[in-house]
């Protein structure tokens, strides 16, 4: 197996692509080749998050749903409470993980998070012919669209639309997704039952998320995961928890935090170096 920067990969010709993904058989003529990354995985992020939330609840975590967060109350260089539609909630530490909406909460505190919403779309269709369906994820490099098998469904996702917080669902975008999957895996799914969706990727300009401390001692950031929030979720959660706990993180994390956006002169002035940040 070949490796680039430690990532194993295989370069495939059209026949090998079809061997890896037999559902592509009828589209073989359109394929010039492929690149397979055997170390990658797939899965339903929603199912995962719901299950993990259930397990967290069983482990004692309290979930308060249906409550909107209005602002953070700072006093003496610390956050003392979060103001919500259900009143004021106090705590020792706060973790900001509001995805694309994180900058709004941080801005009044003087923390300028360079996170901007980049809209993407997906359709989810039930599999009707498993032989024609993808086995794992196939990325259509031409349209920048990913086609993924999730149990008895096919998820087709992609596109980058820079349109602020607009959440409208235009049929034109759905047509692009339908076109891509039907072109490669024609007849695999029932398009009449497609569920059309859009979401706002919390993107940073440098692609790396913002995980770790903030200039406020007891406010921690875990946001800006952009196109890869599902890929990076478990690791980001673990790194963040270690930092909150004042433990040494298992991977270097100093350059994953907000400090990288501060000008050199201000880097040393971050408050609350209670926990040793790994170099």
């Amino acid at each position, binding site marked *: 197996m070949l490796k680039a920067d430690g990532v194993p990969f295989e370069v495939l010709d059209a026949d090998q692509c079809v061997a890896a993904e037999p559902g592509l058989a009828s589209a073989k003529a359109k394929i010039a080749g492929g690149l397979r990354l055997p170390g990658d995985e797939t899965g339903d992020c929603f199912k995962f998050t719901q299950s993990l939330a259930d397990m*967290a609840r069983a482990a004692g975590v309290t979930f308060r749903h249906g409550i909107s967060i209005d602002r953070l109350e700072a006093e003496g260089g610390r956050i003392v409470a979060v103001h919500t539609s259900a009143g004021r909630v106090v705590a020792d530490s706060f973790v900001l*993980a509001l995805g694309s909406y994180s900058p709004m909460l941080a801005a009044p505190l003087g923390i300028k998070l360079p996170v901007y919403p980049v809209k993407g779309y997906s359709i989810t269709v039930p599999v009707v012919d498993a032989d024609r369906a993808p086995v794992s*994820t196939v990325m259509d490099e031409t349209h920048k669209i990913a086609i993924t098998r999730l149990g008895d469904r096919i998820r087709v996702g992609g596109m980058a639309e820079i349109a602020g917080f607009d959440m409208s669902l235009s049929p034109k975008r759905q047509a692009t997704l339908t076109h891509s999957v039907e072109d490669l895996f024609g007849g695999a799914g029932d398009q009449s039952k497609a569920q059309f969706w859009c*979401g706002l990727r919390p993107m940073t300009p440098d692609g790396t998320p913002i995980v770790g401390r903030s200039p406020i001692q007891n406010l921690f950031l875990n946001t800006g995961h952009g196109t890869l929030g599902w890929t990076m979720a478990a690791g980001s*959660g673990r790194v963040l*928890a270690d930092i909150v706990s004042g433990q040494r993180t*298992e991977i270097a994390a100093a350059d994953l935090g907000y400090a990288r956006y501060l000008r050199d002169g201000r880097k040393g002035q971050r408050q609350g170096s209670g926990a040793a940040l790994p170099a």
Partner: protein
Amino acid sequence: MGARNHQEIPQERRYLHFNTGLIGVAKMKVVVLGAGVIGVTSAWYLAKAGHEVTVIDRQPAAALETSFANAGEISPGYSSPWAAPGIPVKALKWMFMEHAPLILQPKLDWARLSWMARMLMNCTADAYAVNKSRMVRLAEYSRDCLMDLRAETGISYDERTQGTLQLFRTEKQVARPRRILRC
């Protein structure tokens, strides 16, 4: 399944989970704002570290916004920034394609313009290399944490561990990753 995967992780990628049963961590009351996949994983590991955790979210359940129906890839192999050398030119081309992968709404506000300017500044070869190395480091660690989580909890989520396949329709596309991957 998790346990088997566990053994597949190359030795150099294993991390010592010496602090999972945290000793000496002051127990705190921690509020996590947001119950997307990021807020929930944060809450999980904070609870495991012994903290008293509350998660707050405006939706009636977890993962109902951006974490709801993404493309489902856990892809350390493709963890690279969008801001890359050559992207500004390609972006222009993408916008005018039929079935365009990139759509830029004409309404331009300050937040959008300054963010896009910062993104352009990250399109140099040097910035790309630094950014990519950070993303890959976190993504690979994350996949390993996920394997551990599966082994530990047996969590299932229509998961598959069969890799991903990037498909090229032209010879030009075939040549590009070869160059990037230096093969």
